[in-house]
């Protein structure tokens, strides 16, 4: 990435942040000249920056926003929620573009369409104002959006009517704009037809086909049912996942390949050891090459894991708009303060953090923040503050949601816990405040008497805790009665993903860390030898101890089939075969130390939550082998 693009990213992020703050301030106080000028200036500077790095599409979108704000400055338009929403949507798009530039180091492709949609959206806002002003019904029964679309399309036809130099450029440009308009109107089929006409027109002597295609499409537009209204902001596709999807796949592919490489390396280590034992003349060089490979692959693994590190801004940025929307829905004025958004964390955490954070922020808005009147009565400022904060503490990343609402009423928590049958009156009466607050994390606990739109029902803090623990973190809750609450997630900085192979033995699925697996084989039963009480098999002229996994771990033994399915594994200098009933899939998991009942089971390295909520036990291969030999 060149230095200009790098500087552009830095400045544009700051400007977006400033513009969001100014727009939200402007919405609170529509007469505030400073925030109006500030937001105008931010869009203006964003446009300038886009011009410097040759990002024309973004320049156009910024120009549209700037125009609208310029009208507000002249007094030609009023500040409305829709106008602020349009501007914020525009900034959302900018953030997506910036993310894409940051990931790929290049200007995003396909930005024209998005910029076109924004321009149409702003134009539609203007058209709606015009229609409202004249109090006339929309022309020819068209909705404002399609009136604007028609106007834009007529302009393209006029553009195409100009002959002479540059016609090819005009055909391409008009065709692109027209296709974008139809795409926006939910008619990708028509957009395709126009694109075809452009190709045809540019290739041959036929110069009229684009204008004709647009004209005929316009006729069908007027005849067609009204297009869908512009989607509300909240229903637009999630910008985070959209901009990340490609990148995530690439990184995951790299992580997965690195995992496979580690497995191959481990098999190689095994061979290096065999070579040494067999007095092979090449053993010294094999050994030293293995050493090199080992260092390189470990380095690669670290580098690949670094790729997965992202700033928490990715998650935080989405809350500006969400809090604004919630604030509107609840009619509770709330100011969102974001701190430490540059703090970095593993991609898995950044991606998974949104849901639990959203839940906590909703809780704060719904239960924490009091209605304005109640705040005024206790002498608090009418506008509540919710702070979203992140910081690095050693090997941990701490993420907090703090509100200045009423705090948690522990007496109420006690009552509810008793009502819901989570504990008896005597027990809760004797509980410390801390223990009472812990009750909130119990399944089935919810302090709202009514089902609210925001917090919903059924998903409570227990779900939040479960998802944070799945990430290897923990949740803390601090509350000051009447002064607010802090929900704190303490998360690991790096999430070590362990690649495991799943196997079934005795009706139970286990994970075997892939870096311990050398190979999987099927062995006819008659080739398995008994050595006293133990079993062994001969593998490439070496006798390898064979262990029945289910029996060793105390699970019921499955019926023996004709062939034995064996996983040959090696860990900590101990190797052998593990007989299993069935081989499963390979997967990346986040290991959690075994707790509670599971901690009593020998040879379990840890557990991991499966997608379906089930728990997979991951084996400590070395301990499995040691168990049987001792």
């Amino acid at each position, binding site marked *: 990435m060149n230095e200009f693009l790098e500087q552009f990213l830095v*400045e544009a992020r700051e400007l977006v942040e400033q513009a969001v703050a100014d727009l939200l301030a402007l919405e609170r106080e529509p007469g505030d000249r400073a925030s109006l000028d500030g937001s105008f200036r931010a869009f203006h500077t964003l446009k300038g920056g886009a011009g410097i790095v040759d990002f024309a599409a973004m320049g156009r979108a910024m120009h549209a926003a700037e125009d609208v704000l310029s009208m507000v400055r002249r007094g030609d338009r009023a500040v409305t929620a829709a106008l602020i929403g349009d501007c914020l949507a525009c900034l959302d798009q900018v953030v997506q573009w910036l993310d894409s530039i940051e990931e790929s180091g290049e200007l995003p492709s396909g930005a024209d369409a998005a910029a076109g949609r924004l321009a149409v959206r702003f134009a539609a806002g203007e058209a709606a104002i015009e229609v409202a002003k004249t109090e006339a019904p929309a022309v020819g029964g068209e909705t404002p959006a399609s009136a604007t679309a028609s106007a834009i399309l007529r302009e393209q036809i006029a553009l195409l009517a100009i002959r002479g130099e540059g016609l090819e450029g005009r055909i391409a440009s008009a065709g692109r704009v027209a296709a974008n308009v139809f795409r926006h109107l939910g008619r990708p089929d028509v957009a395709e037809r126009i694109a075809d006409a452009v190709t045809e027109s540019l290739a041959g002597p036929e110069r009229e086909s684009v204008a004709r295609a647009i004209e005929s499409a316009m006729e069908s537009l007027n005849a067609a049912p009204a297009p869908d209204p512009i989607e509300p902001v909240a229903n637009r596709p999630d910008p985070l996942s959209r901009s990340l999807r490609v990148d995530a796949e690439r990184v995951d592919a790299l992580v997965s390949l690195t995992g496979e490489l580690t497995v191959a390396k481990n098999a190689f280590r095994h061979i290096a050891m065999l070579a040494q034992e067999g007095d092979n003349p090449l053993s010294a060089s094999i050994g030293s090459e293995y050493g090199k490979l080992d260092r390189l692959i470990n380095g690669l693994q670290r580098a690949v894991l670094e790729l997965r590190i992202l700033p928490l801004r990715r998650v935080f940025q989405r809350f500006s708009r969400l809090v604004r929307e919630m604030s509107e829905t609840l009619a509770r004025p709330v100011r969102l303060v974001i701190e430490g958004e540059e703090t970095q964390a593993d991609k898995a955490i950044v991606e998974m953090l949104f849901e639990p954070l959203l839940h906590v922020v909703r809780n704060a808005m719904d239960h924490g923040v009091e209605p304005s009147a109640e705040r005024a009565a206790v002498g608090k400022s009418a506008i509540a503050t919710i702070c979203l904060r992140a910081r690095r503490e050693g090997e941990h990343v701490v993420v907090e949601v703090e509100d200045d609402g009423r705090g948690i009423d522990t007496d109420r928590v006690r009552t509810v816990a008793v009502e819901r049958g989570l504990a008896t009156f005597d027990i809760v009466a004797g509980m410390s405040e801390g223990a009472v607050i812990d009750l909130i994390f119990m399944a089935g606990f919810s302090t709202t008497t009514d089902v609210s739109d925001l917090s919903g029902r059924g998903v409570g803090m227990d779900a939040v805790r479960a998802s944070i623990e799945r990430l290897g973190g923990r949740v803390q809750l601090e509350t000051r009665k009447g002064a607010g609450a802090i929900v704190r997630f303490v998360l690991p900085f790096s999430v070590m993903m362990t690649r495991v192979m799943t196997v079934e033995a005795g009706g139970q699925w286990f994970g075997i860390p892939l870096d311990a697996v050398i190979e999987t084989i099927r062995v006819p039963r008659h080739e398995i030898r008994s050595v006293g009480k133990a079993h062994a098999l001969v593998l490439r002229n070496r006798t390898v101890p064979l262990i029945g996994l289910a029996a060793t771990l105390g699970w019921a033994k499955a019926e023996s089939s004709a062939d034995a399915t064996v996983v040959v594994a090696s860990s900590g200098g101990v190797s052998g075969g593990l007989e299993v009933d069935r081989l499963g899939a390979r997967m990346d998991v986040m290991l959690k130390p075994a707790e509670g009942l599971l901690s009593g089971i020998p040879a379990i390295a840890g557990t991991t939550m499966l997608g379906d909520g089930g728990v997979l036990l991951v084996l400590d291969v070395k301990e499995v082998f040691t168990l049987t030999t001792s």
Partner: protein
Amino acid sequence: MVFKILVVDDSKLARMAVGKVLAGLYPNWTRVEAANADEALAALDEQKPDLVVVDFNMPGRNGLDIAAELRRIRPTMPVAVISANHQQEIIDRANAVGATFLSKPITEPALRDFLAGAVRQIQAGAK
């Protein structure tokens, strides 16, 4: 002749863009940068630039105010005001304080014309 030019813009990216064009035209010139009015006035005092390019759109005091102030202190110093808003009003106001209006994004021919004119003006004044 080698000159010292002061570039005033709150966006570092924009300053970099001016710097790039300038480096192509006059690689030997010294470039001094300022991000706002206060920095610009301090630089005027400490660095004694020969000419100034200032962005119109900035928080706090805008580029026209800065240009007017700079011209008041140094009446013969060539000053250009850069703006993406190509409004006659801004052009007129720039001319009124004796500054040259340049439209944004800054292009090499526009900057070259201004700089060549400025060089002639400074040399004529020095004689």
